[in-house]
């Protein structure tokens, strides 16, 4: 039986995904609250990240110390994503100013734990616009480990493609965001 988690060697990340994520998380950051985004796409040896989902509203907690997404939101995103052949590839979230871009205990253990999924920490409430300054972690062999700069440069392919999708999600559904 084929694995539901094909090996990922590299990620193709359009610059627009970075910009859309920052646009989505900054407002909460300015209010001193963490926020985040789900990155979806095609999971393969070269995984293509194509879609940003910005959870907000019902089923989403944005606090100064944590960002939490209820199972019901993951349920609505699953129902929306699977007919589109989209798979969760990464969860990005912010840390507030002064908090290192490293995974907290909760970030490590209260998140999706399947091989190859990325956990990304954006510093300064979303004000750190250079993705290379973010914390990048990949789940492998039962734990999240940091992708060091040379590995990140090797495995992350930044592109200029414009055809990305940005959506908002809560416990009731998923909606497009006008850009």
């Amino acid at each position, binding site marked *: *039986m*084929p694995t*539901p*988690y*094909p090996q990922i060697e590299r990620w193709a990340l359009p610059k627009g995904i970075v910009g859309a994520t920052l646009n989505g998380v900054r407002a909460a950051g300015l209010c001193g609250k963490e926020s985040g985004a789900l990155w979806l796409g095609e*999971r393969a040896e070269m995984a293509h990240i194509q879609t940003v989902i910005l959870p907000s509203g019902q089923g989403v907690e944005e606090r100064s110390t944590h960002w939490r997404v209820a*199972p*019901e939101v*993951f*349920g*609505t*995103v*699953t*129902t929306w*994503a*699977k007919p589109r052949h989209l*798979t*969760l*590839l990464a969860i990005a979230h912010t840390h507030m100013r002064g908090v290192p871009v490293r995974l907290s*205990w909760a970030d490590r*253990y*209260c998140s*999706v*734990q*399947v091989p190859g*999924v990325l956990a990304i920490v954006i510093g300064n409430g979303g004000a750190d616009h250079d993705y290379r300054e973010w914390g990048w972690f990949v789940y492998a062999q039962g734990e999240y480990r940091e992708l060091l700069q040379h590995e990140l440069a090797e495995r992350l392919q930044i592109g200029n493609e414009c055809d990305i999708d940005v959506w908002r999600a809560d416990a009731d559904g998923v909606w497009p965001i006008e850009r």
Partner: protein
Amino acid sequence: MGQQVEVTVEYLPATQPYRHPYSEEAVLGTIRTDAMGFFGVSDHQDRDTHQFFLEFDRHRLTNAAETLEQLVGPQRRGAHFNLVEEIKPGS
């Protein structure tokens, strides 16, 4: 032997669903366990309590003893679920 129901369970980080035919007398607890095995996840406790649930028609299913027939009604050929994780913070 009851009628067969083709069960599909989707999990957001997985590229493919869990698919399996079950008798309509099969209980949801069995389907949940089988799907979790396919996706390589498990209920567990660390500082917090992690538990996986099946969702059907946007409702979280908590009665493991409920049968497929009780859930979807008789004569239904297929049933589609999502698998989601709930994390209850420890005290």
